[in-house]
C-alpha cells in the first residue's frame, strides 16, 4: 500500500515536472469543450509512401548562416538519409537518421559538435517518425485565431496542430526538457506534401528551413 502511494506520488511529481517544462503558451489556446476521447488521425508527411525529396535549405545557428540544397531519402522503414550541401556542392551534413539514433557519414568540421548533432537527431526523429497511431491525446485545445485543433500527448511530450478543414498536420511541438523544445512547422501543402518545413529550437537559436523543390 505504501509502495503504491509512493509510486503515485512519483508519477505525479514526474507529470508536474514535465508540465513545468511544457514550451507551449496556454494563453494562445482554449481548452476544447469537446473531450479528446476520439483520437485524431495524423502522420508526418515523411511517412506513408514518401520516398525522397529535394529542398532548398538554410540553417541558422549561433552566428552561422548556411544555405544550399538538401535531399531527404527514405532508406528503410526505420531510417532516412539527409544530405545538405552548399550551392557549390560541398557537403555540410551527410547523416542517416533512425528513430532513436543517427549515423554521421560526414559533418562539416565547424558544426561537428556532438551536443548539436544530438539535438538534430531529436528534431529529425520528430520530423520523420511522428504519427498518431497507437497514441491517445490527453487534452484537446483550439488555437485562438486560426481555430486549429491542438492535441496534447503527454506520455511522449508532443503537441500536434491540425488544420481540421484541410485535414493536414501544421505543427508539432516536442520536448524532453526545458532546453530542447522543438517546433516543427508544415506550411502550404500541395498534393499532400508541404512546400515549407521549418524546424526551430528557440533555446539554441537554431532555425532549419526546407523549401520543397521536387521529388
Amino acid at each position, binding site marked *: 500500500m505504501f509502495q503504491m502511494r509512493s509510486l503515485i506520488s512519483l508519477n505525479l511529481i514526474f507529470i508536474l515536472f514535465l508540465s513545468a517544462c511544457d514550451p507551449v503558451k496556454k494563453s494562445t489556446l482554449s481548452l476544447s469543450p469537446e473531450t479528446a476521447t476520439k483520437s485524431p488521425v495524423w502522420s508526418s508527411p515523411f511517412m506513408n509512401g514518401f520516398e525522397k525529396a529535394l529542398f*532548398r535549405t538554410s540553417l541558422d545557428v549561433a552566428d552561422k548562416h548556411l*544555405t544550399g540544397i538538401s535531399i531527404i531519402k527514405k532508406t528503410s522503414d526505420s531510417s532516412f538519409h539527409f544530405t545538405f550541401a552548399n550551392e*557549390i556542392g560541398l*557537403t555540410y551534413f551527410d547523416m542517416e537518421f533512425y528513430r532513436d539514433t543517427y549515423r554521421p557519414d560526414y559533418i562539416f568540421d565547424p558544426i561537428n559538435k556532438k551536443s548539436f548533432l544530438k539535438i538534430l537527431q531529436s528534431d529529425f526523429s520528430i520530423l520523420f517518425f511522428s504519427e498518431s497511431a497507437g497514441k491517445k491525446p490527453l487534452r484537446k485545445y483550439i488555437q485562438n485565431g486560426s481555430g486549429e485543433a491542438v492535441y496534447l500527448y503527454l506520455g511522449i511530450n508532443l503537441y500536434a496542430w491540425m488544420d481540421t478543414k484541410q485535414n493536414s498536420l501544421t505543427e508539432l511541438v516536442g520536448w524532453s526538457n526545458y532546453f530542447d523544445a522543438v517546433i516543427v512547422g508544415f506550411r502550404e501543402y500541395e498534393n499532400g506534401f508541404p512546400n515549407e518545413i521549418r524546424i526551430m529550437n528557440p533555446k539554441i537559436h537554431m532555425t532549419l528551413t526546407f523549401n520543397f523543390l521536387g521529388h
Partner: protein
Amino acid sequence: MKTAKILVFIMALQGVCMFLQAQTKPLSPTDAMDVRKKISEAAKLTLCLEAQFTQTKELSVIKEKIISKGNFYFKKEKLLRWEYTDPFPYLIIFNNDKVFVKDEDKENHINLQSNKVFREVNNILIGAVQGSLLSDTKNFDCSIFDLRDEYQATMIPVNLRIKETLSEIILYFNKSDYTVDKLIMREVSGDYTRIEFSGKKINQNVPDAKFNIP
C-alpha cells in the same frame, strides 16, 4: 583450335590492358611541363570568359544526384560571377578580396580574408580558369594525363586545410584552346561535384558591371 582461341583472347586482353595503361599513365615531367606552359600561355591570353555550366553533385551513400545549372563569368585578374538559375536563382560574385552572395531573400557580404572556406573555393575556381592551380605546388601534387580529347590534371591536396574537405580536384583542359572544360571536386566523404562548362565565349567583353558588389 581451342588453344588458338584462348591465345587470341589473351592477346586481345593484353592489348586492352596496354591501351588502358597508356591512357592512365601520367605524362613525363618534360611533356607535363610543355602542357603546363601551353595552358599558362592560353590563360594569359584569356582576359575574360563567359560560359554556361552544369553542376552535378553525386551522393555516394544514397546513390543520388543533385543537378544545378547557370552562367559563369570571369574577368582578369580576380573577378568571378557564378549565376545559378536552376533549381533556384542564387548568385555569388568574387571581386578580389570580397564575396557577395545573394539568394532569394538574403544578401550577404563576406570578406575572403576572414572566411577560409570561401577563400579556398575562390582560389580553386580562379586557379582552375587561369591554369595557375597546376603550378600551385605549395597546396597540391599535380599529375597530368593525356586523354584522347583532353588533358587531365589530377590535383591531390597537400595543404592540411584543403585536405580536410577535398581529397582530389581533377581539371580537364580542352586540347584545342587549353581552357577548362570540366572540373571535378572529390570530397573526403566520397561525394563529388562535377562542373561542366559549355558555350564558352573567350574574350568577348564581359561588362565590369557583372562583378559589381552592391
